[in-house]
């Protein structure tokens, strides 16, 4: 890819806090006009990386480039990126419009132009009629939109979003997701979005970087991340999965032959080149079919049901004692096996993957 298509380039960034290393040589490229998500559990370094791009954290080693320009060492107020903060950090003594105009005035816009631009951006987030209110007079969702408008007003090269939806309630969060995605398409600005919520990441992102322990585990589209996780961590963190302990018979290129618990041979895609021995097979609960016992990949006993509304989740136990879950769509035609019944489990070919640890 040509370098002018890259908005932000993170190059071998290391961050130490005393003895603790928050980022172990992270490298990734964020493209222009891309919705890019940093996904991971708390403490994985995603927020540290975002703050390093914004300039709130210095980096111990490595470089961060914005459109080819090295940002390393520049203070936050000299970086043409803006942030939407987790708790919004709206200025409480200013009106909504004054909040939105703040960055413009600091950049030297005239008051008249700043007012015009401020009102345009408030229009964009549908808050025009609230311009004269104070932030405390707004609901959480409205405050979130003010924070968004304030960060978008100065037309940043890149917009950084630090878990901006985490303070909203579930229903609101879901509607804001699609709004946010639409806004990103409309403005064409690259968004770097930090979250620990895999559903948010999957629904909004063009690409996701899954992080853990200060390292990038995998970068890819939501589909790649979900369907072709490279290791156990990614498979387990993004969505739900069953990890089966299997014996690896042989590996040839991207395909492995394994022996399932119970002795059935099985062929599946393998994430990376692995040594023969034991490995983990990831099978998503919704990619497992229930059949008659005997000639299926696995035999199992049903130990419980969980009603999830759209789905019904079965807890099953294999003969070696390992526990798995299987999802059935909740419909008229689905027959749900009884607790205690022995069933066969058929893994979908190609959907179960052998993973590196």
């Amino acid at each position, binding site marked *: 890819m040509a370098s002018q298509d890259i908005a932000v380039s993170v190059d071998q960034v290391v961050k130490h806090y005393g003895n603790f290393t928050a980022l172990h040589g992270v490298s990734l490229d964020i493209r222009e006009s891309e919705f890019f998500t940093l996904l991971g559990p708390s403490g994985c370094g995603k927020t540290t990386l975002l703050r390093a791009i*914004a*300039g*709130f954290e210095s980096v111990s080693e490595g470089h961060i480039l914005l459109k080819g320009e090295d940002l390393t060492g520049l*203070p*936050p*107020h*000299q970086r043409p*990126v*803006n*942030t939407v*903060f987790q*708790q919004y*950090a*709206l*200025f*409480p*003594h200013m009106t909504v419009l004054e909040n939105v105009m*703040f*960055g413009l005035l*600091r*950049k030297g816009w005239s008051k008249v132009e700043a007012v015009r631009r401020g009102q345009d951006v408030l229009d964009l987030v549908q808050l025009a009629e609230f311009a004269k209110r104070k932030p405390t007079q707004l609901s959480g969702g409205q405050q979130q939109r003010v924070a968004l408008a*304030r*960060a978008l007003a*100065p037309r940043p090269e890149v917009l950084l979003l630090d878990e901006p939806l985490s303070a909203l309630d579930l229903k609101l969060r879901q509607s804001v997701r699609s709004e946010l995605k639409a806004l990103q398409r409309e403005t064409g600005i690259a968004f770097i979005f930090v979250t620990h919520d895999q559903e948010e990441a999957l629904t909004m992102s063009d690409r996701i970087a899954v992080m853990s322990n200060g390292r990038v585990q995998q970068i890819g589209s939501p589909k790649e991340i979900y369907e072709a996780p490279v290791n156990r961590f990614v498979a387990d963190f993004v969505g739900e999965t069953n990890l089966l302990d299997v014996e690896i018979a042989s590996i040839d290129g991207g395909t492995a032959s394994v022996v399932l618990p119970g002795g059935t041979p099985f062929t599946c895609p393998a994430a990376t080149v692995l040594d023969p021995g034991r490995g983990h097979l990831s099978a998503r609960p919704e990619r497992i079919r229930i059949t008659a016992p005997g000639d299926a990949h696995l035999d199992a006993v049903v130990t419980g049901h969980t009603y999830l509304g759209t789905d019904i989740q079965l807890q099953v136990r294999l003969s070696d004692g390992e526990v798995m879950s299987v999802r059935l769509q909740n419909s008229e035609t689905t027959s749900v096996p009884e607790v205690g019944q022995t069933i066969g489990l058929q893994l979908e070919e190609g959907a179960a993957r052998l993973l590196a640890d």
Partner: protein
Amino acid sequence: MAAGAPMGAGTSSHIYEGNAPRLMAPSWIFIGFFLLAPVIMMAVYSFLTKEFRGGVIWEFSLAAYDQFFFDRGLFGDEPPSIEWTYIGIFWRSIWQAGLATFVCLLIGFPTAWFIATRDPQSRSIWLFLVTIPYWVNLLIRTVSMKFLIRDTGPLNEFLLQVGVIGEPLGLINTNFAVQLGLFYSYLPFMVLPIYAAVERYDFALSEAAADLYSGAWTTLRLIILPVVKPGIIAGCILVFVPSLGAFLAPDLLGGAKTFMIGSLIEEQFKGNAGNWPFGAAASMILLTIVLCILLVYARNQNKTEIR
């Protein structure tokens, strides 16, 4: 709780509603005895006639206020002209108190900022250190200050010994000495409310400002100061008001040249030589000035709330 209050009906505050006057009674009695009564007594005394050996004669008179504002000559028979002596003392006091407040703010704000930005454990240690001087009586502290800065005191002796100065600085009995006394007496009153405000300050606001192209000084001016303003104003009031009425520091450190309101009032009630109605009148005038300043502040505060 009073009998018959309906339990479980409406909110819990509903239960207390009918009892509000009774529950408020202790505070009203306290305020009445220790605040209203003294002020009313003072107001009444300021309109009485003075007794020569202290005390008052119960006879209505405007003499005290007349003496404060008008000069009628040595025998009181000349046509009245404005008496500048007391107005001058008041003016100088306001100026001194204002300057002391400003100096306290200048030192107190960074101090409070420093303390509020330490980690929580060391914060309490710093706050403790700030309040330590208050374990010693104000009089003792002021006298000690006098001993420290007088011509033969340790400060001058040290500077002479080191050779920085050739002769004692002559600090005692100057405005500077009074300022030093006021500053030392009231600095914690500035530090504590500002500390409380800064401690509540959300530092994400500073980050947001920096993110929006604002340098450190601009952030201080446009974000930090406006947000912690209530603490700053509370600190200024807490320093200004007692500085205005202070008499220990001006008396002990300032001498005759720096005579302030506090000393003027104090003299009227000391021994047998005083003039109680005049002291009361001066107190009433002082009270009025302070009240006016606070009202102007409250007014502005309301305006910014509404805007």
